[in-house]
């Protein structure tokens, strides 16, 4: 959230009262903006239906939700890997021949299913909404597919990442009809965002610490 606010500020959008607020709708009529604060995995839905013209959401959620939205800018922050993680003692779990069916716990059922399908491994996908790293520990699954940033959470649960599915950063998305109807305003905004994001990326070394929820 902080990074989004920093970005908005950098392009001249109002940000008063957003940080720490529990309000879900913030109106700035003079500036011509309304912000909706929603659950990150719902952002593509709001934008697809046109309830919001623009949205900021992680590429991981974009890939999983697969909504019909226009993707305008890679904002660069919130960088995480989407990876398969296995128990630390079984690094070669997915490399052997004759792998039977494995159970995969994940918040990203669609992406996980596609990945294992492509790998030719029969997988039973168990869809969890949170604390996915507990699943192998408790015997609910053999492996997990989850976001990794520093790797600390995995290590704490005796897991290790072995295969990457994708690298996810925050993206600016746009409703496809709005893109056309309000093209000049959105183009200008998108360009400003691109520049601000580029500046920010140039100034930051290494990965961010935030884990996307």
């Amino acid at each position, binding site marked *: 959230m902080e990074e989004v606010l920093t970005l908005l500020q950098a392009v001249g959008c109002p940000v008063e009262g957003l940080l720490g607020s529990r309000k879900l709708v913030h109106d700035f009529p003079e500036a011509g903006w309304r912000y909706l604060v929603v659950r990150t995995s719902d952002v593509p839905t709001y934008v697809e239906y*046109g309830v919001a013209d623009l949205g900021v959401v992680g590429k991981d959620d974009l890939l999983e939700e697969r909504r*019909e939205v*226009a993707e305008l800018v890679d904002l660069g922050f919130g960088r995480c890997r989407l990876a398969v993680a296995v128990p630390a003692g079984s690094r070669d779990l997915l490399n052997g021949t004759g792998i039977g069916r494995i159970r995969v716990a994940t918040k990203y059922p669609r992406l996980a299913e596609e990945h294992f399908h492509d790998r030719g491994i029969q997988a039973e996908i168990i869809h969890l909404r949170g604390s996915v790293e507990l699943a192998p520990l408790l015997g609910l699954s053999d492996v997990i597919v989850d976001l990794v940033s520093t790797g600390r959470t995995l290590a704490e649960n005796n897991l290790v990442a072995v295969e990457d599915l994708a690298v996810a950063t925050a993206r600016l998305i746009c409703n496809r*009809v709005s893109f*056309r*109807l309000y*093209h000049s305003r959105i183009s200008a905004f998108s360009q400003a965002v691109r520049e601000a994001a580029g500046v920010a990326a140039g100034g930051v070394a290494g990965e961010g610490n935030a884990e996307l929820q």
Partner: protein
Amino acid sequence: MNGLEYRTQLPLGVRDYLPGEALQKKRIEDNLRGLFTGYGFQEVIPPGFEFYEAVEMGLGGKVEQTYKFFDRRGRILVLRPDFTTPLARIVATKLGAAPGPWRLCYAGSLFSYQDPGAGRPHETYQIGAELIGAPEGAADAEILSLAVEGLRRLGLQDSQIAIGHAGCVQGILEEAGLGEEDRRLILGTVARRDLVTLERIAAKLPISDSLRRILVRLPSVVGGRDELEAFAVAAGGQGAREAARVIGDVLDHLERLGLSEQVRVDLGVVRDFAYYSGIVFEGHVRGVGLPVCGGGRYDRLLDQFGSPLPATGFAFDLNSLMIALAARDGAAGTWATQPFSWLIVPLEADLYAEAARRARELRAKGLIVEVEVSGKNAEAALAYAQERGIGRITFLSRRPGLADALMGGGEGEIGPTEPPERASGQEEAAGPAARSGMKPAAGPGTAVYEAVIDLRR
């Protein structure tokens, strides 16, 4: 689920249209049909299902989304996924003898699976037109005129039609010398308006920087002639420039007809189907997620049926149109409210024939008349009429007192022989107005009294 639940539920993706919405749908169709007829288009009705082989060439990437089943000999059948392909087949195989061009139109439902969770219907309704046998140029302008006029006839001036041209993207891809797979990949990213991925792919292509710049900017060429001009100047290849010129010509034509206000250039419009070869366009209404209409030129489709003919066409999506109109006018009620409707209520059972007789007289004048057949009393009949939005009620009875009670003793105009639009007299502000006096009605035998109540507000 037990048996009753299966009996009362519908499969995913289909719905019932209750009378209110069904009438709205019909009105839209009639309106647009009138438009097409005026331009000389004639309707054809292809079948609801065909052999897979007869429709597969028109499916683009959507093979998996068709509803398939088998006939008794094991051949694959497909529920109609689009109209353009069957119409192409019909012209190629059945109408070719007559001199072209052929102007055909159609209206009906299409079937395709959708992503679960997307909330989109699997059965959609289209009404559209194809102009077959005329080359690129005036014919495309005509199709676009139809689209613009159609939206105006429906009162959807707050809409926008965006025009692109398959040649713009394809011209650039040709010039870049890209292979089939790269082309498909890029077309996909442009169609999805995934500018981020497009940039990444373009960065890795072995093409010149200037070409790369044009490619990356393609989905952002949106606006009017200036943007089109700038693109034409920047685009190296002949194909892209030619395509831009065609768009310019169509814009000219629409301007001269006074139909260009809602039209924009948008080179990012890439229609799904692989067969578009020229102008492509989409129409959108503010607030409606899916396009309300779309189409373009598809010169290579009829060749698949053995008859190489140029063709262009488009269709309105009725579902999206209804959403747009509901957003503007409010949702349709359950029942179709008919202002020129009447209910005749025989308050004694033996008056049913008399009620039916009067109903026939009124219907002959073009009114919609219901006869009460379920034995309702006056109060129940009144409630029924109000709930259904019926305009007037006539009560028939042999008992003058009864009619009196209903009327509250008021004076009023002559009863049911006048059609409502010519009726005079003041409207009551609230509640049903009892406006007709009780009078003995004509007819042999015992007098029948009638009371007419006007329910219109």
